[in-house]
């Protein structure tokens, strides 16, 4: 039964990711029907490519560490304190996810950040990664932290542990699974980072993915395929190791008493200030830059960029508001697909883990790694593969509208799993078993026990999935797509032409996207209390 549950997710990833990848590799390495492995030798002999691989690896590590350092205080702030605007801020953290890369780049090159970390510097790339991934850490760790409550810390304090000892010996180990989970997502994201590095790296800083992109543009499929394979191998190894770690450290925790929060005061002030400053600098400033740009023209404050959002102008295919509706619809569809597929996958993995020693470690971890692949596989290569693989009748899906939400769901899948898996593991086995002996079938257990108990993580995962889809992270996956005007595409078109109206309106559209995102995520959160109060 557990195998049945994972069958759909595995097929989903296999069909949309592995097969396309295999098609590209096949085409690249068997150009004339004969296996030709010279691209491997060529890559191995090219020191500049080794440099790219090495840079990719360490910049991702630095990005992850920086993100953790900047975001953990905020995770604490949200988890353990109550303050005005907490829910809105919690939702707003997701905004960087949905912003088109060109807008992120604009925020970093024209705002105050440019002074600290000018384009083309390592700092620009690292800061942009922290900006994008901040929410991953805050949301995943924050929820775990809130559930932790005061119990364990109090217990340890009574046993004579000082504040630092509590942090080091109690809080940190208990948070470790969620920290590892979020860090692995951040690492993967930074490892496969494409748009941000392309736009902020100033041509000299190149990740493997950027290199693949350039090679594909030159139709150098051999090198691209070899690099794509290397990337997958590195990523799978990493996820596997992280998965085993996380599983070893996973501790079943019962949600604590529902009043862990308290007003910010006294000794907590230091940590609070740290959290607020980090949020302000990392998230607030770049976003504020965009908002200001949308209402600040050459002659001062103006609403003119906003006033025409319901009109289709020369450079646009549809009014920005129409594009917004398109984006919301596609994003919602993608989120639903990702939640269904991800939910089945998590159910399957957890069932396997509990079904016996033979399955306990190796195979669930393997499924886990497979399902994390969408974050690690080269989006450029997969996009190409979709084009090549889905072109044969009877399934010529290349230009159909279904591929877009499917590809977005594919990218959102790892987020869904990363959020749901630890939470599902933490649901007490006895809850499910109680329900079963009371006559609930496995389906009823899922419906009456798992779903309600996991409502919060589900809301969080859904919000993530929606945000990821809204931001068209998957857009690079699908190279040929129906000309459906979406918000990111609209921004790209606006920024594709000179002129202050275009620039101003791009900023207005980006700001609108922010507002809508906060609204949607806030609503999803409120459906079942995104944060415990």
């Amino acid at each position, binding site marked *: 039964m557990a195998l049945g549950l994972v069958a759909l997710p595995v097929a989903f990833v296999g069909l949309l990711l592995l097969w396309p990848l295999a098609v590209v590799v096949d085409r690249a390495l068997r150009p004339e029907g004969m296996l030709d492995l010279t691209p491997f030798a060529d890559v191995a002999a090219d020191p500049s490519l080794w440099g790219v691989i090495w840079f990719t690896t360490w910049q991702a590590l630095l990005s992850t560490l920086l993100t953790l350092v900047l975001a953990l205080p905020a995770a604490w702030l949200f988890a353990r304190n109550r303050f005005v605007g907490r829910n809105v801020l919690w939702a707003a953290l997701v905004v960087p996810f949905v912003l088109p890369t060109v807008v992120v780049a604009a925020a970093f090159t024209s705002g105050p950040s440019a002074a600290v970390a000018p384009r083309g510097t390592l700092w620009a790339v690292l800061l942009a990664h922290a900006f994008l991934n901040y929410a991953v850490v805050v949301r995943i760790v924050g929820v775990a932290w809130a559930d932790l409550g005061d119990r364990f810390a109090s217990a340890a304090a009574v046993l004579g542990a000082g504040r630092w000892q509590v942090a080091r010996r109690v809080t940190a180990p208990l948070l470790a699974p969620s920290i590892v989970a979020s860090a692995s997502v951040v690492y993967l994201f930074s490892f496969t980072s494409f748009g941000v590095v392309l736009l902020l790296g100033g041509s000299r800083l190149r990740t493997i993915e950027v290199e693949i992109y350039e090679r594909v543009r030159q139709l150098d499929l051999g090198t691209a395929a070899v690099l794509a394979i290397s990337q997958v191998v590195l990523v799978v190894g990493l996820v596997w190791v992280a998965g085993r770690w996380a599983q070893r450290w996973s501790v079943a925790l019962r949600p604590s008493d529902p009043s862990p929060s308290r007003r910010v005061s006294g000794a907590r002030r230091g940590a609070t200030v740290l959290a607020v400053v980090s949020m302000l600098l990392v998230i607030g400033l770049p976003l504020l830059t965009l908002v200001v740009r949308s209402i600040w023209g050459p002659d001062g404050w103006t609403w003119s960029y906003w006033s025409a959002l319901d009109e289709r102008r020369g450079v646009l295919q549809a009014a920005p508001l129409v594009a917004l509706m398109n984006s919301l619809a596609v994003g919602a569809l993608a989120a639903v697909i990702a939640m269904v597929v991800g939910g089945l996958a998590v159910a399957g993995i957890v069932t396997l883990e509990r079904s016996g020693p033979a399955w306990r470690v190796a195979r669930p971890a393997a499924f886990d790694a497979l399902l994390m692949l969408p974050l690690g596989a080269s989006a450029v290569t997969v996009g190409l593969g979709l084009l090549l693989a889905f072109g044969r009748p009877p399934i010529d899906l290349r230009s159909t509208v279904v591929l877009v939400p499917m590809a977005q769901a594919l990218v959102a899948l790892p987020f869904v799993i990363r959020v749901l898996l630890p939470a599902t593991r933490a649901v007490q086995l*006895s*809850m499910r078993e*109680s329900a*079963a*002996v*009371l*006559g*609930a079938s496995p389906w*009823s257990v899922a419906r*009456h026990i798992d779903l309600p108990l996991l409502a919060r993580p589900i809301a969080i995962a859904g919000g993530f999935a929606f945000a990821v889809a809204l931001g068209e992270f998957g857009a690079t996956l699908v190279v040929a797509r129906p000309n459906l005007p979406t918000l990111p595409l609209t921004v790209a078109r606006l920024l594709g032409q000179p002129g202050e109206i275009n620039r101003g309106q791009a900023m207005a559209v980006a700001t609108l996207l922010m507002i809508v995102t906060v609204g949607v995520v806030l609503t999803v959160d409120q459906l079942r209390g995104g944060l415990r109060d």
Partner: protein
Amino acid sequence: MSSSPSISFEAVYVTDAVRLDVADLVVSLGGTEVLRGVSLSAPASRTTAVLGPSGGGKSTLLRAVAGLVSPDSGVVRLNGDDVTTVAAHRRGVGLAFQDLALFPHRDVAGNVGFGLRMSGVESAETARRTAEVLERVGLSGVETRRVDTLSGGEAQRVALARALAPRPGVLCLDEPLAALDRVLHDRLVAELHGLFTTIATTVVLVTHDQREALALADHLVVLGDGRILQAGPPQMVWERPASEEVARFLGHQVVNDWRGTGRVVLRPGALRIVDHAAPLRGRVLDAVFAGEHTTLTLAIGEIAEPVEVDVVDPAALGWRGQDVGVTIDDERIWPLDR
């Protein structure tokens, strides 16, 4: 909540009598054999207590009976029907967990009525029976309480009510009273006894507390290290433990060399202190006050090891270092090496 809930003794319903048989059950968890060939029979409408130390496989036995773990081999039968491969939710075996596992997202009524809802009982009937079973466990009027606002005793009663509500053929209770304070514990033992008597359901209760087991059981099974060590009527097991291990679970003293006859079990009352001159003398090595009695540790000349004797007289606390007379009640001595 009512300040002093108590379980109602009125017979509200009686389930069909179901007999449980387990034969040669072997269960492995994580590569270790937790049950190594367990066979037992729980008579219909009676309470069977499984007594054993923590980690002895008691919970696993219950989970296998309820269908939550698949045995490597062996058979579970209900009224003679092999249900070994029947899924938990179709087996009709109720189980109340040691950690209660009340559903935090449902109120008391939602918890208690869960099983009825799962079996398709309509909502009005569910509400009626929920109220009825809550009343039976002494918790009327708490239907809309959140489960995380219940006290320990109340939560225990709700868990019991939840397991009872669907009227399972066999009701399994895993350490039902372990988390309660002594006073509440003792009261609930009495109430449960009355309850089990009146509902006449087949109950299998797992505990590490011999007093609880003896008080509630019609049939006592001692389980240790994955095997049945002894089974039988409580009084028989109490008086004639089959092994030193069983004797120790029951709280009896075991003396390795009893006046040259080998190992014996000393049940309470086997030795008595007398103030007149008795042929047997012992020196009081230690005296510990325990409320209703005082426990003396005696060195008796012809016995190699010290033995303990309970004395009701509180003056015994002052006897340390003195010699006392001892009489022996051979009825309360059970030889292990026959």
